């Protein structure tokens, strides 16, 4: 089995994995970081979104071995001391979630979007979230949360 070394939420990790192990399986089952969700097998829902060297990717559509040498951030990495990050707080304030299943992926995607474009317009937020599906909210409050979270992160 190939051995991989990577950084997850700032922590250096070395483990053996099978070639076929998906990054999301490694995160959830090996590292027990279950904030990253699996919502589909067609690479469409975005619930599994994490950051790979700062960029949003679907961790269900990547092998764990491909993350060798990379820096991964999961939703747990946003609140290391248990205090909500401003984007998480904005989702709470704006009721940007109902069941919460899509929320970790939404927030990880939103954080990457805001890192690339700190002052996005509503249209840019809607386009930016095209890879994340929510079956509950109708998106309205998610968009409001991302706009407000972006503002909070700027200040």
């Amino acid at each position, binding site marked *: 089995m*190939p051995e991989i070394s990577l950084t997850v939420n700032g922590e250096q990790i070395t483990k053996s994995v*099978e*070639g*076929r192990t*998906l990054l999301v399986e490694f995160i959830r089952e090996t590292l027990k970081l279950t904030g990253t969700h699996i919502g589909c*097998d*067609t*690479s*469409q829902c*975005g619930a599994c*979104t994490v950051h*790979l060297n700062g*960029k*949003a*990717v*679907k961790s*269900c*559509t*990547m*092998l764990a*071995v*491909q993350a060798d040498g990379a820096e991964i951030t999961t939703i747990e990495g946003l609140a290391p001391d248990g205090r909500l990050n401003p984007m998480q707080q904005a989702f709470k304030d704006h009721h940007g979630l109902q069941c919460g299943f899509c929320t970790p992926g939404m927030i990880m*995607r939103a954080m*990457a*979007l805001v890192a690339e474009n700190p002052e996005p317009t509503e249209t840019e937020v809607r386009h*930016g979230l*095209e*890879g*994340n599906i929510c079956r509950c909210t109708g998106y309205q409050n998610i968009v409001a949360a991302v706009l407000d979270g972006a503002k909070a992160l700027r200040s």
Partner: protein
Amino acid sequence: MEDFTYSRPASLSDAVAVHGNADDAMYMAGGQTLIPVLKQGLAMPTDVIDLGAVWQLDGIAVSGGTVTIGAMTRHAVVAASNDVGRAIPALATLAGGIGDAQVRNRGTIGGSLANNDPSADYPAAVLGLNATVVTDRRELAAGGYFDGMFATSLEPGEIITAVKFPVPEKAGYAKFPNPASRYALVGVFVAKTASGVRVAATGAGQDGVFRVTVLEDALNDDFRAAPLRDVTIPEDNLMTDMHADAAYRAHLIGVMTARAVARANGRD
């Protein structure tokens, strides 16, 4: 998913050698098609050869009227490239409209062309711009590269290394995305070049991407969107599926072509 032997060769010759020595190997670029395929058990290779470390497949270069894009270049990189944006803005726009942000961070031009999904975007640009697909062993003109749905003239083990796009006088791309998958229900790439207008449609044809000659004839006479309203698009050989029938796709080809022409003419 069945297990396989994973390798990550650092050079083109190593990648080809690993392929040659394996029972049933597959190359992997960004995995944005291959991984879903493996998950569903639609392919069960003995070996997966990751092309991510092959240095020869990287980079974008513009010189002498040609834009050359390495096979492993991610869609997001093409979309954000100032070089591509200046030379062929329609190509950067096309790349920025593929799938979603996460897919664009991993998916590659080489993987998209090797897969030749009948609803993928890049095939329209390659055929519309009359680009050349460069492999580890030869160069293939766009017309001879595509070989029907999910089929190309690549031989077993052959690796796409780059795509060379001639810079047109002007060009535009417009797609009507399927709202669920974001693939093209119909996408049309229009290019005006010194040797005439080329119109390539994706998402519509039963045999994958194709040139729409009635529209090329009309645009060679008059490169404007308005007169295209009078052109009838033949329905023969257009796809009918759960998303749209052939008549609707024929209609969309006209509408998307008019939008692409308006964009090429700087009137969005």
